[in-house]
């Protein structure tokens, strides 16, 4: 299905623009929204480009720059912090050879931090794409990442 058809169905739904942006980002292949995507959404939703741009840049789940095939979001909120999320983050940075906000050279992973993911019962936690991984230890990371490479 082309991008235009994929998002046309959302026009009359509540929150339709955000659903459309989710869809465009999923179809981009690089987990991001290009200027062309923004133009397209503006046209389909009959909105000024600037207001679609405004919406897209507001929400943390959308990226305006290309990202890796998989996006890692490590929770840095207090419940994860008190059980060691900083160790998880530094171990990930070491293992992947990137800092927060960067993408690995092979284009496989982008490392991000996130606010509470709402699974504090298994803190410290992170999300890779739509999947949550909890009870993380610095030792458990390599095996989890291998499942995505």
């Amino acid at each position, binding site marked *: 299905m082309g991008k235009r058809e994929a998002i046309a169905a959302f026009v009359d*739904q*509540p*929150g*339709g*623009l*955000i*659903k459309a*942006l*989710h869809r465009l980002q999923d179809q981009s292949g690089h987990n991001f929204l290009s200027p062309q995507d923004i133009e397209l959404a503006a046209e389909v*939703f009959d*909105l000024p480009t600037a*207001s679609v741009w*405004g*919406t897209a840049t*507001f*929400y*943390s*789940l*959308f990226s305006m720059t290309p990202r890796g095939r998989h996006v890692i979001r490590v929770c*840095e*909120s*207090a*419940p994860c*912090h*008190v*059980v060691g999320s900083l160790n998880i983050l530094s171990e990930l940075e070491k293992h992947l050879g990137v800092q927060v906000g960067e993408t690995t050279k092979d284009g496989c992973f982008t490392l991000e931090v*996130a*606010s*509470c*993911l*709402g*699974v*504090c*019962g*298994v*803190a410290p936690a992170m*999300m890779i794409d*739509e999947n*949550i*991984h*909890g*009870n993380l230890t610095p030792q458990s990371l390599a095996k989890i990442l291998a499942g995505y490479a």
Partner: protein
Amino acid sequence: MRFIRSHILICSGSNCQLRGSLSIMHALEAELIKKGLYQEIRIVETGCLGLCEKGPGMVVYPEGVMYTRVTLADIPEIVEEHLLKGRFVRRLMTQPADGEDKLTPLNMSPFFIKQKRVVLKNCGLINPESIEEYIAAGGYQSLAMALDQYSPDQVIQIVKDSNLRGRGGAGFPTGRKWDFTRRAEGTEKYLICNADEGEPGTFKDRLIIEGDPHLVLEGMSLAAYAIGADKGIIYVRGEYDLSIKRLEQAIRQARESGLLGRNILGSEFSFDIDVCLGAGAYVCGEETALIESIEGKRGEPRLKPPYPAQAGLWGKPTSVNNVETLANIPSIIEHGAEWFRSIGTATSSGTKVFTLTGNVVNAGLIEVPMGITLREVIMEIGGGIPGGRQFKMAQTGGTSGGCLAEEHLDVPMDYESLSQYGSSLGSGALLIMDDSHCIVDLTKCFLRFFVHESCGQCTPCREGTAQLYNIVDKISKGRAAGSDIDLIEKLSRTMQISPLCALGQTAPIPVLSAFQYFGPEVRAHLRGTCPAGICNMKGALANADS
């Protein structure tokens, strides 16, 4: 007919799923088939049992034996010993069992005995994916009763009399909110269920939805009937995959059964519900920002008044209610306002669902009557502090809530008492921290969250959160002076009154309370010492005025 002699209820809430409850379930199924027991024992997927830290959890009925931290290797033993020979597998049990056959009933065990489950009444008892099980447990009775016997005004009166207050954080009386919306001019009105649970440490709404989605739908239908809305929207976090799936499935089932749609149960009342997804913005939990987001815009809070009750979604009268608030409604209609007021304290009626996180033995989901003390929650239900460490502090109400010290352990958990100590019930998050943590480091973590989540619309919040962070960062490096603490105080007071929404207004609360109750520890940092040994003091400056 298949005769079932035992039921095994396995938690399929997201915390337990992450600990492997689904593979446990499949292994159990295979083992039952292998032993020829499959015809007489039924496995049921249920919602959260509460002991998230000890997942995956399961309860075997009719005995009511709860097993936790079950692994694949334990399955053959559970089947062979318990289900075939009738002997409990004691090493996996959570409740005490004296002697061979004396078992403490589950609801009398330490984790459950002080709980009162109203919102979570079906959680862990029914299969959330089955509307039939919800109906069999008395579900949709309240809706039928209200449509048959009560006018919308009577429903509002019952909710007003019950003294129910919003469970999302602000604590506004629900009946009054509905009354404003009902009396607002216009025939087109909306009901929005706020499931954009973003307060760090809070995952109650996720587990309520996952464990009993129809309860939320029934609460929404009653609310819509009361305010005169025929359209409802659930705004749920984009990250909440299982919640979204369970809600969409429940809505489909309710439509098929005629419990959503036109002329519900033969009445004049028509109502339908849509699910709307968030995209990662904490501020969208604020009701006007949430409305902006549903309209497809940046989630920036609106200037109030007008309040949503006058001009909400698409400019129409709208009531925005939290998941837990709505989940209370069916029970209030069923048992009456007086019953609800008999739970809790004189001014804070009913129960509150809390999520226990951090350094506590039984991290998880609990529901207790309002007015219970922090000590009972942490030391009894929560099982105390693990690893032989000491309790240091608890933050109630999430990252926007206040920090309480050991001297506050006997404070009752209700709206009024907590606010006396500069804290709040908030969303029901309870973060417990032991003595290995540094108050300055924690405050920095709280503030980093607000810097990231401030939407940037108004200056006091956008600049204020960043400045607070910078000053606390300076303190954590031993580079601050006494005057910086005064500056924090001054800036915080400004922020409490000037930003457009609660995000900016509450951001200073954790800082103020932490600095008030842990003053000596904070001031040690001015002298270049972190008593807990967490902060990096290598670049510390010696300060004369500290």
